[in-house]
């Protein structure tokens, strides 16, 4: 059932309000293109041939049971572009419709493209990753999910993404269709554990529940690593792992954002409980104290020693990224491992752990000029 109709009204005639005469129904649309490159809105383009007479012509475009952004409706004359001119557009009251007034230099069959933003139709992207048993590589498949709840049936529509060739797809109203559109094999995985001092408890041995450390797979969206042709759209990624017995296990899912070419697709798959981080503050002492005339402390430095013990109970090596925070002014007296300063208060340590390894990180630092009250 068509909810959208284009009706040729013929030569301009005076149209009394509320009594519009719709004359001739034109042939069905030749082709319909659904463009899904923008997750916020779907553009539908349809091409039709209008039989125009010399002089002024009116073309009525109306819809029922669908929601079209009226201001988005455009008409483009594809051929003969130089002989047909769009003069104006009018919106009849109380209807989902508009009327184009076209001027034609001579009678012709004009090929036009009508485009508009249609509500209730969109796309999702989902991914399925299958990692090798040793987690060295991953096969990645991406699926387009077309959700059509627009009120309109689309049969053999040309669906276009922001890259690749368009493909034919049918989707009736209230139908959802899923189709594979990207398949890559053997993409290298970089696996890391990530522990954040502001998010994770420092002493898991004093808790009754397990403290897992988030585990991430990073897949580079670059040509050198087997991807990099296009950005990867945001969507749910489900990751499986081969079990060595011809089957797989599910290892987790994530909802990473849009990944431009050159960036990493980072997937949080689950939590590792065989790498344990225990952090303790061994020294926490005020020094260089300054007092006011009431003998209240107004300024001091604080010396601190933080010891972080990292144990890998696994039989495999592991890479752990430890994120530590030292707010305010500070000076590192000694750090037993190199770190990267991510911003003024965020330090990132990359710890390479051998199987059954145990490493202790020490940070001996002074936080300076801590004021107990503001200027008066």
């Amino acid at each position, binding site marked *: 059932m068509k909810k959208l109709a284009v009706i040729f009204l013929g030569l301009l005639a005076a149209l009394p309000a509320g009594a519009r005469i719709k004359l001739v129904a034109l042939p069905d649309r030749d082709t319909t293109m659904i463009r899904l490159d923008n997750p916020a809105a779907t553009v539908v383009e349809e091409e039709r041939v209008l039989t125009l007479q010399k002089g002024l012509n009116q073309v009525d475009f109306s819809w029922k049971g669908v929601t079209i952004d009226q201001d988005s409706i455009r008409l483009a004359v594809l051929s003969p572009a130089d002989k047909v001119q769009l003069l104006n557009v009018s919106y009849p009251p109380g209807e989902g419709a508009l009327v184009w007034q076209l001027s034609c230099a001579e009678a012709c069959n004009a090929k036009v493209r009508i485009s508009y933003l249609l509500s209730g139709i969109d796309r999702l992207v989902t991914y399925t990753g299958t990692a090798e048993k040793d987690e060295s590589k991953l096969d990645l498949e991406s699926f387009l999910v077309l959700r059509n709840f627009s009120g309109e049936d689309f049969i053999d529509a040309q669906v276009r993404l922001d890259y690749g060739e368009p493909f034919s797809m049918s989707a009736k109203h209230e139908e959802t269709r899923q189709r594979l559109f990207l398949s890559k094999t053997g993409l290298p995985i970089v696996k890391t554990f990530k522990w954040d001092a502001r998010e994770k408890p420092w002493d898991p041995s004093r808790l009754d529940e397990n403290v897992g450390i988030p585990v991430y797979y990073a897949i580079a969206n670059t040509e050198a690593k087997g991807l990099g042709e296009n950005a990867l759209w945001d969507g749910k990624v489900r990751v499986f792992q081969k*079990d060595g017995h011809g089957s797989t296990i599910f290892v987790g899912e994530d909802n990473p954002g849009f990944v431009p070419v050159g960036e990493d697709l980072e997937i949080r798959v689950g939590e590792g409980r065989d790498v344990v981080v225990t952090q303790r503050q061994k020294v926490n002492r005020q020094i260089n104290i300054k007092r006011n005339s009431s003998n209240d402390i107004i300024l001091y430095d604080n010396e601190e020693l933080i010891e972080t013990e990292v144990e890998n109970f696994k039989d495999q090596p592991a890479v752990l990224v430890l994120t530590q925070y030292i707010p305010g002014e500070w000076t590192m007296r000694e750090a037993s491992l190199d770190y990267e300063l991510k911003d003024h208060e965020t330090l990132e340590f990359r710890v390479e752990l051998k199987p059954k390894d145990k490493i202790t990180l020490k940070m001996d630092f002074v936080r300076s000029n801590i004021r107990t009250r503001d200027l008066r």
Partner: protein
Amino acid sequence: MKKWTALALAACGFVLPALAGIDLVTLPERDSVQLTIYNSADLTLVREVRKLTLRKGLNKLSFGWANTLIDPTSLRLRAVDKPDAVKLLDVAYPPRINSQAVWNVQSEVEGEVLVEITFFTSGISWRAFYMATLSQDEKDMLLEGYVRVTNNSGEDYANAQTRMIVGVVNLIDEIADLARRKEPYGRPYPEVVMAAPMALRMSRAPNAMALAGAMDYAEEASPKEIVKEGLSEYFLYTIPGTETIPNQWSKRLPSFKPVRVPVVNLFRYDEERYGSTTMRLLFFKNDEKHHLGETPLPDGFFKVYRTADQQDHLSYEGATPIKYIPVEQEAELNLGAARGVKVEPKLMKIQTDQYLFNGTNGNISGYDQAEDWTLELNNYRDIPVRVEVFRRLRHPYVDEIKPKGELASFEKQDAQRVKFVVELSPNTEREITYRVVYHEGDRRERR
């Protein structure tokens, strides 16, 4: 009764306006089924293999799952033996028909093709639990581990290869919520989550298959031993052979052979964690020395008994949940308040000196406060015990602490916490004393 095995094949060339008028062909039962059950989430990966008879060209396969808890977004179909000749073109979820998908499959071959269908379901769960029986002298315990699989999925599973995953997966959506959605991927605008279908809440009488399944297990010559292997951050437990787990039934299986594990009886006093109660704990390590250590121990509930007499009568000691224990890590079983061991810290003396005065107004600006503490420890039991006492310091400005008395160890754990360890013989008491000198005010700067 099968609920989601409404898999049907329609001949090529059909258009499916509303699936009306299609000559559906009911397919044979699934050839095999594998369940991979997670305990960190309500999630089971189901993998089934079926033999489909395909025609050359376009085939439409309809798959229905009414009144089950499967996640339609997880449905996948793959040709096992002829992957290059059988291609899945797309999947359609027809309008206004609930719980149904239509696979459009292009086949270059005619005849039987083995396909694998995978999907997630909720409603099947497993959990680990343990039973420990302490010897009379409490130096070791007989440890038995079990897993219990429960099927509330709405579907009977006959002869399923059953696997369990130990580990925590990251999940964005609950599978049960996805299963209840009216449309498989929702709508472009916000949707209303449907209530669970009534059918899923109805209990069902055990059917013939259920009883047969139970009997299968009873007829086993010996208990099955679960095969364990590590994969990524997970441990995969596979039950050898197949299991029949009818809907609403549970099945308990031993997860390892009973082992005798040496234990340390430990009593702990830590006001920060337990108030003024001394807690009883059992310690053992998940390693070879303790006759364990092959795989991690999954988190679960521990019930601890003790052999009470020569006739092996049992005394119930307590129950506790345990955390996941990696290989080589120590396990701690908290059995609750101790009855036979008492720890009492007593502040015996306070003494201040080293006063400092403010030069301008003459007020006190600093001093030292010495506190003499006594830890009174009593072991009323007829076995030796180890006692840990944690003490929190008010602040980190203290002199070095030198405890007196017979101690196994003493350690300053961090800037404000110290730990005493004492070994007590049966029916003994002991006193440990220590002095803490706190530096207050300006004394913190002048040491």
